[in-house]
């Protein structure tokens, strides 16, 4: 019996790690954004979608927004028809949790240029994609398969200008738009751990 349990948990573990594989279909999800609007990943079929695990209290995430580098990239990609979804998986008891009101204020003060900020307090999307850190990024191609997952760029710093770094998300999106294979498909994400609900 113990062996069976061990086997099942191993399979479950394997299944969870294999949930998001490069080149495989990205799992669909539904969520509510901070304006109360329902969002479904499959609504954006035939568009390139960027998912970002987000928590601006994390200095690594914060720096991308405080410097305006993330908003700049979001605006540039939006102009090319790319959808950018922020996934906030911080649990409700954590001091970094944002109520919809707080989130809307932060959205305005940071001048965030993403498509939507998704409330993932339950951690459902975060676990589905095995999001490890803030920031942790995923790029989904137009055909719905995962094209990139990992760090925002090759500069794991909480200060200074991120524009000096090589941005993996920009590179992946540019390759997809040009019909080229994505050169770097996976990197180790950096930053703070996602503060999931227990």
């Amino acid at each position, binding site marked *: 019996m113990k*062996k069976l349990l*061990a*086997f099942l948990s*191993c*399979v479950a*573990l*394997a299944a969870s*790690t*294999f949930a998001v*594989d*490069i080149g495989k279909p990205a799992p669909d999800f539904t969520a509510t954004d901070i304006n109360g609007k329902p969002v479904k990943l499959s609504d954006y079929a035939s568009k390139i979608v960027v998912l970002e695990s987000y*928590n*601006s*209290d*994390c*200095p*690594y995430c*914060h*720096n991308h927004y*405080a410097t305006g580098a993330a908003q700049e990239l979001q605006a540039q990609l939006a102009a090319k028809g790319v959808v950018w979804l922020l996934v906030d998986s911080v649990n409700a008891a*954590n*001091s*970094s949790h*944002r109520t919809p009101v*707080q989130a809307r*204020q*932060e959205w305005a*003060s*940071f001048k965030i240029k993403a498509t939507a900020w998704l409330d993932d307090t339950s951690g459902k999307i975060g*676990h589905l994609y*095995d999001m*490890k*850190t803030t920031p942790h990024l995923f790029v989904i191609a137009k055909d719905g398969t995962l094209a990139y997952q*990992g760090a925002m760029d090759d500069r*794991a710093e*909480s*200060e200074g200008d991120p524009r000096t770094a090589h941005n993996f998300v920009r590179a992946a999106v540019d390759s997809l738009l040009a019909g080229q294979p994505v050169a*770097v*498909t*996976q*990197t*180790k*994400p*950096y*930053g*703070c*751990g*996602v*503060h*999931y609900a*227990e």
Partner: protein
Amino acid sequence: MRRFIIVLLASLVLGLSPARAAHTHVTLLLAADTARPGDTVLAGVELQMDPGWHTYWQNPGESGIPTQIKWNLPPGVTAGDIQWPLPHKLPPAEVTTYGYVDDVMLVVPLKLAADLKPGQPLTLEADLTWLECQDQCIPGKTNVTTTLNLGPQNQPSTNAALITAWQQKVPAPVNPAEWSLHATWETPAQGDTRPLILDGQYLGAQDKPLAISAVDLFPAASDNFEIQPAIDLVPTSAGHFRLRKTVKKFSGDWPAAVAGVMVLGTSTGPANYEIQLAVADVPASSTAVAAGTQTPPAIPPSDAPTTSLALMMLYAFIGGLILNIMPCVLPVIALKILGFVGEARSQPRRVRLLGLTYAVGVLVSFLVMASVVIGIKAAGHQAGWGIQFGNPIFVVSLTTLVLLVALNLFGLFEVNLGGRAMDSASQLTLKHGYSGAFFNGVLATALATPCTAPYLSYALGFAFSQSAAVILLIFFMVGLGLAAPYVALSWNPAWLKYLPKPGAWMEKFKIAMGFPMLLTMVWLFNLAAGTYGSQVLWLGIFLVLVAFAAWIYGEFVQRGRSHHTLARVVAAALVIGGYVWFLEGQLHWRDALKLDGSAVSRKDGPDGIDWGEWTPEAVLAARQAGHPVLVDFTADWCLTCQVNKKTSIEIPSVRAKLKELNAVALLADYTHAPDNITAELTRHGRAGVPLVLLFPKDTAAAPIVLPEVLTPGIVLSALDRAAN
């Protein structure tokens, strides 16, 4: 309402700048108040965290950032690497990290140059950056300073005991005599993940079996892959563990080696060791099992160690077999075949016995070598294949011996080890009595060691880290391989029918074989030159005297009709006089002259590769400066190394490639087998040279280990891989 305002204010502040670090207090301590120039002083950087907060280890795990120390030190003071105490594995399971709670002290050795002048106290300063986390994470940054006096005496500070206590929490490298460790891919890759099996066998006191209750590997940091934190312990017998870890690859090739800290819970308490293991490929026996998509987690207790032992024994045997055709051994073997020709037809029984005697000679020599290796290991030293060539006494004795063998082949004198002095060509074959055959076996073994054949290095690398019984077994197999062709031929003399009939040609052949022997002597002489420098002249004069004495002995004692006693006295006087006067008096042959000038003549001509001297620090420094690094572990006595260098390293295409990639080339000279190089070889699973490593410029990436025998193509393509 008040809460709402606070949150509102907080979020406004957050919009402007991240919160200031206030939960970690940093102090810089020194183990000494006063130190002498040339001393190494331990510095302790203590981080005290508020309750609930933590900072990170060198590999933070799935999130977090390691604490960094940037030293600002006065000239003459250099900081070593951070020595990290064992961290805690921190929850939650979905984002596991390695870090410190409450407090930690990062220990850093500070080396004072010997030419520092006492005077003003030295000001030591460090900039620290870290990430502290609780419910949220805050980056921290501070500057700490302290002073150190220089004086004639080392005066420990009041903090010395505290720093030493923390240093004892730094995992020490694993002792290969205590643990036999292996890393193996369990199955081929499944997408980006691959199961890795770590096998550990406790080799310590066998009377009390060690119960292992918990095992984990805290991996070293790496950019290209990640060893995931989940543990899957496969049940095995006492004193043995088998840990399955999942490796997730981000980019590049699957790692060829894994490193980190092995963390154990045992019946004698917790234990942790720093380890670095080469990852072996999927074991042949389990590929069939692994062919399915899902491997059941409970695989039967390992038969892998036995399989790999059997495989290593096979490698050892094949390696021994190949040794027969190595240039250093071939003349001896040729002589033996010569010996067959005469006797095979008339005395088959005697030939068989001689064959066995030769085999016994080989095996006894190998077992003696194995005992020496076990002895060296038991004394706590590092042992490696071929280290005896770093010993001047061995080199001089062998040079003299090889010269005598050559002169004997030339017919200058005869050897009557068999108890009968023979001097005619017709009796040549009988001359090699049983003791002659035994001696030939010993000689073949002595000459074989510089030629580490392919296959052999794997087997020996394996053997040197094993228990005494396994070392004996592997050495025995090598000896068996070396002796096998001769024994087989002596058992089936029919195979010899393809050889020409005995006759006068044999005498000519014997003389011809003297020349490769002479060549071997020249090579050994060159080796001695590496030890004695220009003083090697005295050894040359001694060798000429020995040769002269050998001729007098052969001509006047063995073949002469009268004045035997006078000839004996003259020959003995020449040898003894030469020894006392030149070897002892002039050369001081038993004290190897350590030549410091070894780094001077590293460059092979004006276009040659500009070799630097290998140290682990030099490798790291070059990689941190963005250079890929080529390290050639070599020795003057290692023929394979010299051949590799001539054919595949010091060649125009590789030189150009190194320049183009801005690569740094480092040479690790194993001629005198220094302990630090032996340790480095062991880390890469080798018992001796050759070993060529290519370190990618990315400091976290594992080095590329090149095969034993190189071609330009192998080196060039590996350089390309290291540059990317």
